[in-house]
């Protein structure tokens, strides 16, 4: 996993942030979580965001994933301004443009691996037959073909995160957002996950990884460090 990142791709950025601010209100005092962030992410980049807790990296990831709204500034996704979009369009972005991978996996424990991967396609209204087909293909791609019928409690941590990656990939989003994807895993299992991420990127997947593991950071084409809501 110490492989050096390949040279960063260039071209029209898929993500373009300008003067992005996000403030939270603590009493009467506005506290900035993001304090004027500018960022261009070219298609196919593997970008690593680092920083201590509260530095604003998760907020940035949530805004890019349309889970959160900036207080001000501009966010362009594939050339389209996102900040002014109405909610239904933002839902569509969450569905089709981004896939989330979480530190704690966030699998639904009562559903099988296959059903978990199907879930985003259920919300997107993909036909059941096609859905199942795609879900099992995606699980196969992350090496879990033999685990489709298992529920999360029957899976190891690494397997769970692989199910989560398959779920993030199910809708074939152009952007993958991973928030501490190895944070809950031992180093050996973490390595498996990292290999999968590198693999995905090698096939052109744009990937944003938030971590404070220096080890994981090495896989990035570019490492951006954050502090107090700004890039260092």
């Amino acid at each position, binding site marked *: 996993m110490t492989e050096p990142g390949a040279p960063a791709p260039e071209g029209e950025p898929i993500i373009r942030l300008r003067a992005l601010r996000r403030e939270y209100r603590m009493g009467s005092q506005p506290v900035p979580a993001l304090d004027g962030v500018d960022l261009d992410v070219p298609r196919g980049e593997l970008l690593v965001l680092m920083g201590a807790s509260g530095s604003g990296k998760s907020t940035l990831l949530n805004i890019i994933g349309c889970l959160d709204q900036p207080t001000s500034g501009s966010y362009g996704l594939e050339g389209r301004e996102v900040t002014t979009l109405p909610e239904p369009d933002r839902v569509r972005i*969450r569905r089709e443009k981004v896939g989330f991978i979480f530190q704690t996996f966030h699998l639904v424990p*009562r559903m099988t691996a296959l059903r978990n991967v199907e879930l*985003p396609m259920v*919300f997107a*209204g993909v036909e059941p037959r096609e859905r199942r087909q795609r879900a099992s293909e995606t699980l196969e791609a992350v090496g879990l073909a033999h685990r489709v019928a298992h529920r999360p409690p029957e899976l190891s941590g690494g397997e769970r995160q692989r199910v989560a990656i398959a779920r993030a990939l199910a809708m074939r989003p152009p952007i993958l957002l991973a928030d501490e994807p190895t944070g809950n895993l031992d180093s050996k299992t973490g390595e498996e996950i990292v290999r999968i991420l590198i693999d995905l990127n090698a096939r052109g997947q744009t990937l944003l990884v938030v971590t404070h593991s220096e080890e994981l950071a090495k896989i990035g084409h570019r490492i951006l460090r954050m502090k107090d809501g700004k890039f260092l």
Partner: protein
Amino acid sequence: MPLGDLWGLLLETLRTQRLRTFLTMLGIVIGMGSVVLLSSIGEGTRQGVLAQFSQFGSTIVGVQPGKVKTFGVGPGSIGGTTHPLTVEDGLALRRLPGVVGSAPHIVGSGEVETNDRTRFTLVYGTVADDRRVLRWEPRIGSFLPDGDPDQIPAVCVLGSTVANDLFPGSNPLGARVRIGGTRFTVVGVMQSKGQVLGFDMDDLAIVPVKRAMRMFNRVDVNEIHLLAASHEMIPRAMEGATRVLRERHGGEEDFTLTSQADVLEVVDEVLRVMTAGVLAIAGIGVLVGAIGILTILWVGVHERTAEIGLMKALGASDGQVMLVFLAEAGALSLVGGAAGVLLGAGGAWALGAVAGVWVSTPVWIIPLTLGVSLAVGLAAGVVPAVRAARLDPVGALRAE
């Protein structure tokens, strides 16, 4: 979101929480079960009472002496005069168009004696027409003979209880009995009618009306039963009866006509109101069930906060999140309602079979119960569902 997908999500949730699902539904099951049970009893009682009333035919019009359309003191007691109703009044009414039977009758009680046995019973004096009016046939022998009431021979027809009591194991036809000191020949025994509204119809002796009047030293009858040819003929029969009786009573309307249909309508109305009242009480149970669903769903939203955040991160719209929770509420209450229907109808059936209670589960209660269950469940689900839909996904995902 297609229904099938919603159903899939639902099953996965409810299956893993079987006990909770069961307990949540219990309130609705009990509430709806009691609604069905009580309405079955209410409807059964209504039908039972109506059947008892209408077994004598619903085209009967009763003629009573005195004008009793208003409250207060009985007729004739303050001012005015009340002509008694007579057998001749009854015969006059018999000739009216639309009237197919007229039975002036008198009721008293007396002893019926054979050589070795005596029974105190109801003595019912009437005419041959009453057989048609009451829709009551002799089991053996014949009813009172037709003809001029003054010329009817001293014959009697016994109720089955009286016949069995006085003539155990032997045929009473042709036997001589003394009723109230007068000799009668038994010509028939009536079919058993059993209890009608608490009154034993089989414990009586039927004698010609004029002989009964003499026996009780009366010049008038208690009541005249008219039998209209059909429902449609009732108003015409009543009109004619009023005209004829007024003429015969010197222009005074000192009698009252009551059609059986009117009585039935009143009884029906009373029983309907009673049933509705009982149902309203059962409705409280349904309300409690609804509160149960609301509570459990509210807790569920809280417990599944992270999952709701996840759903949103995976591209679920607020509407879809709401739908998932509403569907859960709807399914819980609908299944609960269905179980309640089964339980209530089964309970009613058992009550009828074992305890002999009058029950009849009205068919319309089934769609009504299911509809109300669904509506109540959805209503109870709205608040938790809206709360789930409005959760901020970032905060929700952090909850664990």
